[in-house]
C-alpha cells in the first residue's frame, strides 16, 4: 500500500482493522504497520481515536491502558493482571518475558529495540535485588546516567552503596552494593571479588563485545567473573541484534541459559526526506524506494516545534565546533523563545558557572550557554561529563527544544525526541555497527508518553541524498560474532594495541598499577631514574607540587627538560622508542594541565588559566597599562589588542596515536578577538579526560610507584598520589574513594570527623548545610 493511500484512503477503518487483526496474532513486531498507524493517526485522528484504546491493549502497553470497553480489551487486561500477579509488576509482555527469564535462568541474553521499556525492567530488578549488582556499560556517559537514576531510585535507602567504580567502602552501613562500571574499570573488581556478595551482572549495551580492544576486554571480564562466580546471574542486553545467543555461545554458557530476540515496537515512525528545506514522506519499508515520495505540504517541523515538540539533530562535531549548525538550522532556532522557567535557568547558571563562562558578552562568552538560554543544547564527547549531565537533565525535564548531538548520544543515552534529523550520515565501525548505531539513533524518534490510550509516534528526517543508503541500512540486519576476539589472532593489530590485547588474552594485567605486565617490565628496566629524580626535584617544593604559573615561569631550558623527562618516562612503557611530532606536542600541552589538575584546580580554573595563557593576558595587560598611562590612544590600544594572535595549542588526542597531528585548536594567526571560549572548554576536557586520565595517569603513576619501591623516596609516592588521585591528602583520597569529586570535597572536608573503609563520621555541623549540599552527602549520613 502506498503512503498516499494511508493519507486519502476512504475506508481507513479497514486498514486499522487488518492491523489490529495482525497485532493480535503476531504482536507488535511489524515496524511497517506501526508506520501505517502513525500515518492514520496523523491524517485520520478521529477515526483512529476509536481504535486507540484497543491498540494499546493489543500492543501490550499496559501502563497506559484504561478499563476495557470490549471483549478483546477484557482478554488483554486479563493478560495484564496475570502478568502483574505473576511478576509483581505492571510489566508489558516483553518486560515480563525478560523478567521471568532473568529470574529463572543463570544466563540470559536478549535484544530489544530502543523504547521497549528496558530501563523500567532494570529499575525493578535493582529494587528487588538482595545481593550486590555489577552493571557494566560501554561509556562513562551511560555510567553517569545510571548513577543518577539508581541513586534517585534508592533515595532514602542508605544501606545500598552505589558507586561508579569498585571500592568496598562504608562497610559498616552497607547491606548491598551496586557498582556501575565500564569494562575497563572491571579490573578493580578482582582484588575484592570474594569479599562481595554479587548475585547479578548486568551487561547493558553488550554489543561492545564487537569492538576490537574493548570487546576483548569485555569478553575477558565476562569469562573471568564467570569462572570466579559461576552462580551469579549474567544478563546481556542489546539494542536490536539478530542473534543475542552469540553472547552465550562464545563463552560456552549452555546450561541454565536462555536468550530472546524481542522485536516489539511501542512507538511508530514517519520518515521524511529533506532537500533545501522541502520535505517528502517516504517509507523505508516500501518494496521499491524510488516509487513514492509524497510532498509534505505544511510546515511540519516548525509546527512540531511550535507545539512544544522536540528535535534532535544528529550532526558532525565539526559543524558544532565551527558554528555552522546555527546557520544551517537558523529557521528552527529562530522559533525557540528565551526560556523563563526558573529551574531551567538554574541549570543554565550552574553550567555557566561550571565552565567559567562570563554572564554578558565578553571574552569568556559561551555560545553554548547563549543557545541553551533559548532551549537549544549541544551534546558531544568532548563536553565535560558534568556538563553533559546538566544538559541531559535539562533535556529530560523538557526544557530543550532542539538538541544538536554527535554519536555520543547513540551510546545508549535515554532521551527520546519528536523528530530525529540525521544531518550527518557518517557512522563509525564496521557495517554491523553502523547499522546498529543508525537504528539506535532513529529509535529515539517518538516520545513514548504515559498519556492513557495514546498511540505515540515520531518523525525521522533523512537528507534526500542519503535516502537510498538509509533504506539499505534499515533492511540489513545486525548480528554479533559467535566467537570471541579473545580466541582470534592479534597479529594484525597496530603496534600500540598489542600490549593490552596480549595482557587481556593472557590475563597478565596488573590490577594495582593498571598496566600490563609487559609494560611494567619495560618501565622497570628502563633507564629513567634520572628523569624521575629531575621531576621530583623541579616539581615538588616542600612536598607540594609547584603551580602551573611556576612552571610557565621556568626558563625555556628547564621547561624543555621537564617536558623531555615526562616524555621519556611515558615512552618507556610503550613498545616504541620515539613519539611522533604530534604525540610529543600533545604531551607537551598536557603537562601544565596535569600540574593544575594535581594542584586540585577546578575545571573552570584550569580553563581560565589556559585562556589567560592562550590569549596572552600579560601582553593585553601591558597594552592596557600603556593606555592608562596615556602612552597610546584607545584606538591604538584596540588595534594592538586585535593584533595579538592566539597562542598555538595542539588539539587533544588520546596517546599513543601515531596519526596525531600538531594542528592547533584555532587556525594560526587567529586574533584573540575571535577566541571561541566553548572550543577551549571542549579541548580542556579532552586533555583532562582523554590525555591525562586515560593515557598518562596510569603509566606515570606506575613509574613513580616503581621508583618508590626501589628507592623508598617518599616524594615519589607523593607525586604518584597527586597524579593518581589529584591529591596527597589521606582524607581527600578517602572521600574520592567514596565517590565525591574535588568540588564537593572542598566544602565537605571541614565536616568530616573521621573516615575509613567502614564509614564516614560527620560532625554535628552538617545540620547547617544547605539542602542541596546535604542532598549530596545524605546517603552516607
Amino acid at each position, binding site marked *: 500500500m502506498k503512503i498516499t493511500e494511508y493519507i486519502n484512503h476512504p475506508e481507513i*477503518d479497514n486498514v486499522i*482493522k487488518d492491523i*489490529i*487483526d495482525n*497485532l*493480535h*496474532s*503476531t*504482536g*507488535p*513486531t511489524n515496524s511497517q504497520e506501526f508506520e501505517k498507524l502513525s500515518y492514520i493517526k496523523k491524517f485520520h485522528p478521529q477515526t483512529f481515536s476509536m481504535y486507540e484504546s484497543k491498540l494499546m491493549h493489543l500492543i*501490550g502497553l499496559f501502563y497506559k491502558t484504561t478499563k*476495557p*470497553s*470490549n*471483549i*478483546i480489551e*477484557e*482478554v*488483554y487486561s*486479563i*493478560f495484564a*493482571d*496475570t*502478568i502483574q*500477579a*505473576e511478576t509483581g509488576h505492571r510489566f508489558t*509482555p*516483553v518486560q*515480563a*518475558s525478560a523478567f*521471568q527469564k532473568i529470574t529463572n535462568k543463570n544466563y540470559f541474553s536478549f535484544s530489544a529495540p530502543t523504547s521497549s521499556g528496558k530501563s523500567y525492567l532494570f529499575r525493578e530488578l535493582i529494587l528487588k535485588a538482595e545481593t550486590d549488582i555489577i552493571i557494566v556499560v560501554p561509556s562513562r556517559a551511560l555510567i553517569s546516567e545510571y548513577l543518577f537514576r539508581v541513586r534517585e531510585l534508592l533515595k532514602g535507602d542508605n544501606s545500598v552503596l552505589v558507586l561508579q567504580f569498585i571500592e568496598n567502602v562504608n562497610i559498616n552501613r552497607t547491606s548491598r552494593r551496586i557498582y556501575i562500571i565500564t569494562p575497563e574499570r572491571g579490573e578493580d573488581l578482582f582484588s575484592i571479588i570474594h569479599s562481595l556478595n554479587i548475585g547479578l551482572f548486568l551487561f547493558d549495551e553488550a554489543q561492545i563485545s564487537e569492538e576490537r580492544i574493548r570487546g576483548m576486554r569485555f569478553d575477558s571480564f565476562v569469562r573471568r567473573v564467570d569462572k570466579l562466580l559461576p552462580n551469579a546471574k549474567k544478563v546481556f542486553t542489546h539494542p536490536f541484534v539478530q542473534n543475542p545467543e552469540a553472547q552465550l555461545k562464545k563463552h560456552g554458557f549452555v546450561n541454565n541459559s536462555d536468550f530472546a530476540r524481542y522485536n516489539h515496537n511501542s512507538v511508530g515512525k514517519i520518515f521524511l526526506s529533506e532537500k533545501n528545506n522541502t520535505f517528502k514522506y517516504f517509507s523505508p519499508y516500501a518494496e521499491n524506494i524510488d516509487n513514492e515520495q509524497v510532498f509534505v505540504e505544511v510546515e511540519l517541523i516548525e509546527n512540531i516545534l511550535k507545539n512544544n515538540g522536540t528535535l534532535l539533530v544528529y550532526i558532525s562535531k565539526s559543524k558544532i565546533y565551527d558554528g555552522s549548525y546555527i546557520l544551517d538550522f537558523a529557521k528552527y532556532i529562530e522559533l525557540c523563545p528565551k526560556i523563563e522557567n526558573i529551574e531551567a535557568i538554574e541549570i543554565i547558571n550552574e553550567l555557566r558557572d561550571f565552565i567559567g563562562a562570563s554572564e554578558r558578552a565578553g571574552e569568556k562568552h559561551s555560545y553554548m550557554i547563549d543557545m541553551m538560554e533559548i532551549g537549544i543544547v549541544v551534546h558531544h564527547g568532548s563536553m565535560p561529563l558534568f556538563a553533559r549531565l546538566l544538559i541531559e537533565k535539562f533535556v529530560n525535564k523538557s526544557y530543550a527544544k532542539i538538541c544538536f548531538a554527535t554519536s555520543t548520544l547513540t551510546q545508549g543515552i535515554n532521551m527520546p525526541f519528536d523528530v530525529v534529523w540525521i544531518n550527518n550520515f557518517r557512522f563509525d565501525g564496521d557495517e554491523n555497527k553502523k547499522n546498529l548505531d543508525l537504528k539506535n539513533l532513529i529509535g529515539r524518534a517518538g516520545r513514548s508518553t504515559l498519556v492513557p490510550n495514546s498511540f505515540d509516534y515520531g518523525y525521522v528526517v533523512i537528507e534526500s541524498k542519503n535516502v537510498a543508503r538509509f533504506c539499505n541500512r534499515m533492511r540489513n540486519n545486525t548480528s554479533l560474532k559467535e566467537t570471541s576476539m579473545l580466541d582470534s589472532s592479534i597479529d594484525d593489530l597496530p603496534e600500540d594495541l598489542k600490549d593490552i590485547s596480549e595482557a587481556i588474552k593472557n590475563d597478565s594485567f596488573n590490577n594495582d598499577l593498571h598496566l600490563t605486565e609487559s609494560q611494567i617490565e619495560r618501565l622497570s628496566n628502563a633507564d629513567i631514574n634520572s628523569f624521575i629524580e629531575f621531576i621530583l626535584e623541579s616539581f615538588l617544593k616542600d612536598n607540594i607540587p609547584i603551580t602551573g604559573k611556576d612552571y610557565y615561569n621556568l626558563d625555556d631550558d628547564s621547561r624543555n627538560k621537564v617536558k623531555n623527562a615526562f616524555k621519556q618516562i611515558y615512552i618507556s612503557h610503550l613498545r616504541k622508542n620515539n613519539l611522533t611530532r604530534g604525540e610529543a606536542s600533545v604531551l607537551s600541552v598536557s603537562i601544565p594541565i596535569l600540574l593544575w589538575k594535581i594542584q586540585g584546580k577546578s575545571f573552570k580554573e584550569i580553563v581560565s588559566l589556559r585562556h589567560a595563557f592562550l590569549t596572552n593576558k600579560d601582553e593585553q595587560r601591558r597594552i592596557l597599562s600603556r593606555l592608562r598611562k596615556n602612552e597610546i590612544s584607545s584606538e591604538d590600544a584596540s588595534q594592538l589588542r586585535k593584533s595579538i594572535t592566539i597562542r598555538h595549542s595542539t588539539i587533544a588526542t588520546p596517546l599513543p596515536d601515531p596519526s596525531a597531528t600538531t594542528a592547533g585548536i584555532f587556525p594560526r594567526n587567529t586574533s584573540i578577538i575571535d577566541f571561541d571560549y566553548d572550543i577551549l572548554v571542549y579541548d580542556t576536557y579532552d586533555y583532562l579526560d582523554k590525555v591525562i586520565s586515560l593515557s598518562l595517569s596510569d603509566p606515570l603513576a606506575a613509574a613513580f610507584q616503581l621508583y618508590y619501591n626501589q628507592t623508598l623516596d617518599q616524594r615519589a609516592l607523593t607525586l604518584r598520589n597527586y597524579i593518581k588521585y589529584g591529591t596527597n591528602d589521606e582524607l581527600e583520597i578517602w572521600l574520592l574513594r567514596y565517590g565525591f569529586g574535588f568540588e564537593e570535597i572542598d566544602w565537605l572536608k571541614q565536616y568530616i570527623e573521621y573516615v575509613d573503609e567502614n564509614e564516614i563520621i560527620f560532625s554535628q555541623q552538617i545540620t547547617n548545610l544547605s539542602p542541596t549540599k546535604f542532598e549530596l552527602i545524605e546517603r552516607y549520613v
Partner: protein
Amino acid sequence: MEILSIDIVNMEDYGKTSKGLVYKIHVKITDVESRAKEIIQSISNKSWINNLGVVEQMSYAARAEKTIVKLVTQIFEKVDDTVTEEFGEYLVSESARDSLINHMDHKFIPLAEIWKEKITGNPGFDFHTESSANLITFGEAKYSSNSNPHTIAINQIVGFIDDKKDIMDFVHLKNFASDEAMQKAINGEKAYVAAFSINGQQYERIFRTAIESDCFEKLLEYPELYLIGVEI
C-alpha cells in the same frame, strides 16, 4: 442452548409471497457461562502474548474466571455497556449458528473466525454455514439489552447485500464451501439468517413484526431465509 421451536413460515398468512423457504427458530440460551469462557479462550489462545509464554495457563484461567462471572452477571442484569453488548451479540451469533448446525443439518463454515478472529468488529456478516440444500447462508446477529433488534439485523443484511459484502466474501468462502454451493452462490442463490436477542415474552408478536417489516420483504426472493430469536 435449547431449541424451543422451529417452524416453516407460511408467508401467505402474512399476505406475502416468497420464492423460497422462511424459517423461524426460537432458541433459549442455557450456556451463557460456557460461552463466556469459550470466547475468552478462543481470543486468548490466538494472542501473541499467549505465544510469548509469559503467563501460566492456570494463572490466566483463574483470573479469567472473574471476567467470566462479570460477563454473565452483566448479561443477566441487562447492563447497558459496550462490553455486554458485544458479548450479547456473540451469544446470539454463536447460538444461531449452532442451532442451524445441530438442528437444521447445516455445515459449519469457519470463515468469520479465521478471517477476522472476531476481534475487530469487522463490518460484514457474523457467521456462515452451508445448508442441507447446499446454499451458503450469511448470518447477521444483533443484540440489545432492552429491545428486540430484529429490524436492525434485517436492515443490516439488506445493507450488506446492497454493498455486495456477501460477494466480497466469495473469495474466502470458496476454501470452505462445497463446489455446488459456490456455484449456486455465484448464480445468486444464497441464504440469509437474521439472528436477534429477544426481550419480553410475546415471541409470536416479535416474529410477526420481523416478518412484516418492509426490509424483510426485500429478502423474499432468496431460496432460504432464517429468523432466529435468541432468548437470553
